[in-house]
C-alpha cells in the first residue's frame, strides 16, 4: 500500500514536471478503463484501415504503371478482361462489407463493455458554465454537499459516475486519458462513467464550442488512493479557515465588503454568491481560471487585478483595488487551503 502510494505520488510529480502543472490530456496516453478500451479499438481500426489504404494505393500505382498493349479505339473491349475486373470489383466490395461489419460489431461490443454500470459507483455532479466547471459532491448519508470548481478528485480503481448538467450553453466534458467525452446539454441530464487505474493528474477541457473562452475551460481530474481521497473530501467539507495572519484577515474583510462576495461563496463567511466558483478552499486547488494558471499568490493577484486581459470576455469583472488591497485579498485567497 505504501509502495503504491509512493509510486502514485512519484507518477504525479513526474507528470506535472513533464507537462507543467496540467497533467495528461491525450486519447493515446490512457489510464482509465473506458479510455483503455477505446484506445484498443482505435488502434485496431487504424491498423486495418492503414492496411486497406496501402492495398488501394498499391493497386492504383500498379494500374498506372502496368504494361499494356497499344490499342487505339477507346471502345474496343476485351471480354475476358471485363469479366476479370468485374470479379475483382465484386471481391473488393465483399471484402469492404466484411470489414465494416467487423468494425460495427467491434464498436458495438466496446460500447456495451464501457456502458456496464457498476453498483458502487461514486456519484459527482458536474455543471458546466461559461467558462468553468462546478463540481459538487453529495454525501448520501448526511445530505451535505461539497462544492468546488475545475478540479475533480476521484479514488483510484473505482467507477465514478458524473452527472453532467449545463447552466447556460452546451459544453462537453472530456478527459481523454480516462474516458470519451459527453456533452452537457441545457435541459437534459447526461451521465458519464470515468475511472482511473493509477493515481495521477489527468487534464481535460471543454470540447463543445461554448463561446468566447471555450479555449480556456480546462479541468483536472486528480486520482488518488482511496485514503487520500477520503482525507481530501473531509478537508473540503470543512468550512473555510479563519485567517491567522493580519494581511489575510484584512483580505477577508475586503472580500466581504467589496463586490467579490456577491458572486463567490466562501463557506463559513457571509459570502454566498453563486455566479462564480466557490472559493472555500481555492488555495488548495491546483489551478485558477479553469486551468489557466497554477495557483500561487502571484497568479491569484494577477487574476484578481485584471481578469479581462488574462481571459478576455470571461464573466469576472475587474474590481478596482489599491495595491495593498490586492495583496491582502490574494493573501486571503492563498490562505484558503
Amino acid at each position, binding site marked *: 500500500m505504501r509502495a503504491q502510494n509512493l509510486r502514485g505520488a512519484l507518477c504525479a510529480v513526474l507528470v506535472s514536471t513533464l507537462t*507543467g502543472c496540467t497533467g495528461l490530456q491525450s486519447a493515446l496516453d490512457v489510464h482509465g478503463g473506458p*479510455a483503455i*478500451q477505446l484506445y484498443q479499438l482505435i488502434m485496431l481500426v487504424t491498423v486495418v484501415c492503414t492496411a486497406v489504404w496501402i492495398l488501394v494505393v498499391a493497386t492504383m500505382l500498379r494500374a498506372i504503371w502496368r504494361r499494356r498493349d497499344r490499342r487505339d479505339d477507346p471502345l474496343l473491349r476485351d471480354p475476358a478482361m471485363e469479366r476479370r475486373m468485374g470479379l475483382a470489383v465484386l471481391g473488393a466490395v465483399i471484402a469492404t462489407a466484411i470489414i465494416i461489419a467487423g468494425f460495427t460489431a467491434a464498436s458495438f461490443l466496446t460500447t456495451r463493455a464501457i456502458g456496464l454500470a457498476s453498483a458502487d459507483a461514486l456519484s459527482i455532479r458536474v455543471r458546466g458554465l461559461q467558462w468553468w466547471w462546478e463540481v459538487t459532491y453529495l454525501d448520501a448519508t448526511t445530505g451535505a454537499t461539497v462544492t468546488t470548481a475545475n478540479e475533480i478528485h476521484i479514488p483510484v480503481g473505482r467507477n465514478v459516475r458524473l452527472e453532467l448538467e449545463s447552466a447556460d450553453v452546451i459544453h462537453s466534458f472530456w478527459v481523454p486519458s480516462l474516458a470519451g467525452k459527453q456533452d452537457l*446539454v441545457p435541459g437534459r441530464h447526461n451521465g458519464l462513467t470515468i475511472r482511473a487505474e493509477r493515481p495521477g493528474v489527468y487534464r481535460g477541457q471543454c470540447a*463543445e464550442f461554448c463561446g468566447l473562452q471555450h*479555449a480556456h475551460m480546462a479541468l483536472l481530474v486528480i486520482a488518488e488512493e482511496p485514503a487520500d481521497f477520503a482525507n481530501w473530501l473531509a478537508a473540503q467539507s470543512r468550512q473555510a479557515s479563519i485567517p491567522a495572519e493580519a494581511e489575510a484577515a484584512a483580505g477577508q474583510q475586503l472580500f466581504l465588503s467589496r463586490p467579490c462576495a456577491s458572486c463567490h461563496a466562501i463557506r463559513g463567511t457571509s459570502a454566498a454568491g453563486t455566479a462564480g466558483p466557490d472559493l472555500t478552499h481555492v488555495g488548495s486547488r491546483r489551478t485558477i481560471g479553469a486551468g489557466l494558471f497554477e495557483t500561487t499568490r502571484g497568479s491569484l493577484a494577477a487574476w484578481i487585478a485584471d481578469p479581462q486581459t488574462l481571459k478576455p470576455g470571461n464573466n469576472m469583472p475587474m474590481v478596482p483595488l489599491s495595491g495593498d488591497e490586492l495583496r491582502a485579498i490574494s493573501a486571503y485567497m492563498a490562505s484558503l487551503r
Partner: protein
Amino acid sequence: MTQRPTTTDADLDNSVLADRLERTWRTPKGFWGALSTVDHKIIGRRYIITAFVFLALGGILAALMRLQLAQPEARVIGPDRYNQIFTMHGTNMMFLFAVPVMEAIGVYLVPLMVGTRNIAFPRLNAFSYWMFLAGGALLWIAFALDMGPDVGWFAYVPLSGPQYGAGKRADIWAQMITFTEVSALAVSVEIIVTVFKQRAPGMSLDRIPLFVWSLLVTSFLVVVAMPSIMIASTCLILDRLIGTHFFNPAEGGDVLLWQHLFWFFGHPEVYIIFLPAVGMVSTIVATFARRPVFGYLALVMALIATGILAFGLWVHHMFVAGLPRLGESFFTASSMAIAIPAGIQIFCWLATLWDGRPSFKTPLLFVIGFIVTFVIGGMTGVMVASVPIDTQVHDTYFVVAHFHYVLVGGAVFPLLGAIYYWYPKITGRMLSERLGQWAFWLVFVGFNLTFFPMHILGLQGMPRRVYTYQPEMPWHGLNLFVSISSLILMSGFLVFFIDVIHSARRGLPAGPNPWAAPTLEWATSSPPPSYNFLRLPIVRGSNPLWEETESLTVGGGLSVDRREFIVSSVVEARPEARETSPGDSIWPFWTAIASSVMLTWSIFSPWAVVWGSIPVAIALVGWFWPKGTPEEEA
C-alpha cells in the same frame, strides 16, 4: 395548334442558321443586357467565378487562423475575432463556395452535356445567382463591420439563441442560410427538369453521362435536405426576433431539436458537395484512361445509394449529445454502410485505370491525388462513425482533419481537376500544363502536410474551435508545422489562380474537343455559341463522340425565330414536343433585389415581411407577365 413557325433550322444551311440562331439567342450588349441575361453559360460562369472568389476569401481566413495557432497563447487575433473567423470560414466554404461551385458547374455543363439549348427555367436561374450573390454580400459585409457570425457554421443553440448570442450576428448567419438555400433549391429544380425533360433524343437513362447523373442525385438531395435547415434557421430567427421558444428548454423547447434539424441537412450537405465531385472523377477518368468508365450501372447505383443513405446518418454528429446508445448503434451501422457505395466507386475507377491507357495530364493527376487522400478521409469517416471512437475524436482536430480530407481531398481535388478539364470549353483556351502540374504537386503535398498532423493533434487531445492553447500542452510543435505547411498549400492555390487568370487571355486556343472526350459538350465550339449547338444532336450510345467519329447525327425542325428546344421523355428521351425557352428579362434581378431587401430588413423587424413583400409581389408580376409566345407544340 398555334401557327407553324415561319422558318425552321432544317430549311437553312449552316452559316445562315448560325447567324439566325445567334440573333434569337444572344444576350444584348451593355449593362442592362448583362443584368437581364438568362443564358445558362453566362450565369454559370458568373456563378463559378463568384464561388472561387469566396474560396480565396475563405482561404485568407484559414491563413489568419493558422497564424494565430502557430504559437501557444498567441495574441495575433483575439477570441471574439477568431470566433468570427472560424465561423466565417466554415459558413463561407460550405454555403458560398462548395455547394454553389458544384451547382454552378452543373448550370454551365448540364445543358451542354444533355444536348439542349438552355437550362430549364432560365429566369429562375438568373434569380438564383443574384440571390446567392446577395447572401454572400450580406455575410461578408457583416463580417467587415465586425458583425460577422461567431457561433460556428453549425450555430448550436442556445449559444446562438436570444440569451447568449448578443447583437445581430447569429441572425445574419441564419438569414444568409435563407439566401443560399433559395438559390440552391432553384438550381436543383432547374437541373432535375433539364435532365429529365430536355435530354437529346436518344439519350435514354442508361446513356446519361455520369457527371449529369451525379448532379441529378445531388439535386434531389438538395430538394430533400435544404428545407430542414431552412426550417431550423427560420425557427432560430423567430426565437431571436419575436421570442418564440422552439429551442428554449425552459419553455418546453428543445436544444437537441436544433441539432437534429441541422444535421438532417448537414450530413447530406457533405454528399451534396461530394457527389458532383464523384461525377467529375468518373468523367475525367474515362477521358484520360481512354476507355468508358468501368461499371457504369454500378456507379449510377452507387450514386443513388449514397444519396439515400445520406439521410440515415445524421445522428453520427450527435453521438456525444446523450442520445440512447442502442439507437446510436443503428447510426453506426448506417454510417459505415456508406463505405460500400464509396468502395464500389473507387474500385470501378481503379479498374478503368487498369484497363485503360492513362495519359497523365493535370486533370488525371488531381484524380489520382483525390483517390490517395479521399480514401484516408473515408477511413477516418469509418472511425468517426463508430460511437465509441467518436466519443474520443468528436470535436477535436481529428475531425477537422477528417472532413478536410473528405471535402478538400474528396471534392476540391476533383474540382480543380474539373477546372483544368473544362476550362478550355468555357474559355476556348487551354490552361498551362506546366503550371497545372506545379499547382497539383504544391496543393497535394501542402494539403497532406497541413492536414495529416491534425489527426495526431486531435488524438493528443486538442479540441476544435479553440482560439489558442496553453504553452504547457504538447501541441506546439505540430501546430507550428501545420501552419508552415499551409503556406505550401496556399502557394499551390496561388499558382492555380495565376494560371486561370493568365490563360484566360494568353492560353493556347483549345478547339472544340482538345481532350478527344466522348460527351456532347465537346461537340460544339469552345466557348459554345449562345445557342449551344447549331443543330441539336441525336444520341445513339453512351459515348457519342467516340462512337460517331465522323460527324454527329443531328435533328432538325426547330424554329430559329424564337428560342425553341426539344422536350423529351424521361426514360427513353423520345422527342415529345417543341417548347419555347423564355427570353432575357430584368425582372429576376429586381425580384432578387426586392427579396434581398425584405430578408435583410427582417433581421431587424418582423414588419419587413409585411411591407417588404409588396415590392417582391410587384417584381414577380413583372417576371410572369404573359409573353405572347406559344409555350409548347407537341
